[in-house]
């Protein structure tokens, strides 16, 4: 409803006082005017109610900024612009086309939470009116009615405009509160998962620590009563379990590194599968049971684009698991071959196999934050397998578990092949 429909009544009073007809006319006009005023009030109220309903159900109130602008434009017949601050940290949203001056006014109005401009107590001489979008305790934005000048809004219109703005402000505030509650919930979830992971890590650390403590304290208190062979056995056990703890530490650190936000810095290069496997074999052969590992490598494999240190860690973990959880005499196979456009690294054991229900979960049992499930996990489903999967995925590959025909597991890592680089002219 345009501002300029406010009827000038005064002339009618002058004429109406002269004649009865005029008096009756005046009465009529008066009634007409009250009717018009009542109608206008009802209209404003309806508009407020409708906008209020819209805001109440709005999941993202800022998406309805244009409705607010339109309502204010038709009220004042002037161009309107707005600034919205839907969340505490994020950038402001700007609607309409405020110039630099208007934008500064909008920010000022939103910051101080008071109406500024003609018809207000602040900056009354300015040509533009600024109204804050008031939330419960602060403004979450502002609108400006451009060029309203001295023809300020009528009091009821002013109140109406401010009411619309406050509906937006309250809706924005509600959304902020909801966002904050959701973020707090997510944070609590992360926290509880992390606590469960820490509990799982310390559980995994305790086993080798218990062996070390047992062996070392036996040497300490019973040393003289033990035979040299017994003493050597205890010392060997301490060394072996320390190696296990070291691997656990490396895995935990790697998992934290690969799981951190942002892309972990990989050191990819053209690597030879034969060399990676050769180095892994060299490490495993130092173990007393290391001879059980048999390797087969497809000689036609091209160079692979991967991180050699990560690949070593992946193979060490898979081979370690396979040796640990399969019968003492059984062979562990390490096979590398080309399958289509991928290199397949398979570590195969003759262990008890893994229950179908666990085949997928075995890689993240450690990270689930479910301590009851963690306690029932299959052997080996600790930080080792979790880091293997993280390593596989960091290099653009896939790690999966397949049951073997006559018992046991095959852990399979598939790495996509890339076009190998040019080689120098051979032979040199």
């Amino acid at each position, binding site marked *: 409803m345009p501002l300029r429909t406010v009827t000038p009544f005064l002339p009618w009073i002058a004429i109406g006082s002269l004649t009865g007809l005029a008096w009756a006319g005046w009465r009529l006009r008066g009634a007409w005017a009250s009717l018009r005023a009542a109608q206008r009030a009802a209209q404003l109220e309806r508009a407020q109610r409708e906008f209020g309903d819209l805001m109440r159900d709005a999941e993202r109130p800022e998406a309805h900024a244009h409705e607010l602008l339109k309502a204010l434009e038709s009220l004042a017949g002037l161009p309107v612009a707005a600034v919205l601050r839907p969340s505490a940290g994020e950038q402001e949203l700007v609607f309409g086309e405020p110039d630099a001056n208007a934008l500064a006014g909008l920010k000022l109005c939103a910051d101080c939470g008071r109406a500024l401009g003609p018809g207000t107590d602040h900056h009354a001489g300015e040509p533009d009116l600024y109204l804050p979008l008031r939330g419960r305790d602060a403004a979450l934005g502002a609108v400006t009615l451009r060029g309203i000048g001295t023809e300020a809004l009528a009091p009821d219109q002013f109140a109406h405009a401010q009411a619309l703005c406050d509906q937006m402000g309250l809706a924005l505030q509600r959304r902020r509160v909801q966002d904050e509650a959701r973020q707090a919930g997510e944070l609590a979830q992360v926290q509880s998962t992390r606590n469960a992971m820490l509990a799982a890590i310390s559980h995994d650390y305790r086993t080798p620590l218990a062996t070390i403590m047992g062996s070392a304290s036996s040497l300490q208190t019973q040393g003289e009563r033990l035979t040299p062979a017994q003493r050597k056995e205890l010392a060997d056990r301490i060394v072996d379990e320390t190696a296990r703890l070291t691997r656990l530490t490396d895995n935990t650190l790697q998992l934290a590194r690969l799981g951190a936000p942002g892309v972990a810095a990989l050191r990819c290069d053209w690597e030879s599968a034969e060399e990676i496997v050769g*180095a892994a074999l060299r490490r495993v052969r130092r173990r007393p049971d290391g001879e059980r590992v048999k390797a087969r490598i497809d000689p036609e494999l091209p*160079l692979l684009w991967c991180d050699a240190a990560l690949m070593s860690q992946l193979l060490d973990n898979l081979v370690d698991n396979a040796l640990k959880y399969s019968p003492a005499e059984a062979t562990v196979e390490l096979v590398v071959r080309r399958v289509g456009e991928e290199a397949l690294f398979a570590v195969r054991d003759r262990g008890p196999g893994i229950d179908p229900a666990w085949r997928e979960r075995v890689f993240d049992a450690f990270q689930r934050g479910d301590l009851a499930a963690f306690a029932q996990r299959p052997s080996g489903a600790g930080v080792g397998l979790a880091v293997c999967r993280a390593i596989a995925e960091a290099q653009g590959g896939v790690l999966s578990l397949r049951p073997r025909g006559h018992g046991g597991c095959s852990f399979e890592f598939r790495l996509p092949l890339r076009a190998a680089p040019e080689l120098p002219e051979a032979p040199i």
Partner: protein
Amino acid sequence: MKLLLVEDDRELRVTLREALAVEGYDVLTAASLADARAQLAHAGPIDAVLLDLGLPDGDGEELLQALRRERSTPLIVISARQVEGQKIRLLDAGADDYLVKPFGIGELLARLRVALRHRGTVAQPALTLYRRAGLEVDLAAHRVKRDGADVRLTPTEFKLLARLVRQAGQVVTHRRLLADVWGPDDTEQTHYLRLYMAQLRAKLEADPAEPRVLLTEPGVGYRIAEPG
């Protein structure tokens, strides 16, 4: 043999000192960079340095750089940091070796023996005749034999093998190998190394898939096994 052990953790310092003393080494110790600098300046000739990186008054890397400006005393880094990039940087900066904590005394003694053998021999190879597992490399005569029979190598293969033999028992980084064998412009071409190492292994190893002499240090470089 006089060693300087720079390590700020008291327990580890005492353990290592005693283990090294049992082997007949005369061990000086330092718990900080300042301490280590003072020892190097005043303790007379030192045959080798064992250097921890995270010291209370700075990074051990500073000591390596300062030391390398003056002398070629063998230096082995002992660090809890398992980061390939750092390992390579320190090796390229002149560290003889890099041991990640925790390590066994046997391993430390082996690396120390190798480092001491190469001491003061940056210009001249420590040994000109390398023998191990049926392989014989005669650098002076440019001759390579396996199980007594001559093996023909291409000039590049021989250069690569000779470079590793010059530092037998120590890891040589990819970058160093590429610079010394192919030249300073080719230090990024690690795939050359993969090809030539595969060729060398095919000619020199009994089982190239499980090498005993030409060893890979994943992500860092190559090492030819200690002779013997």
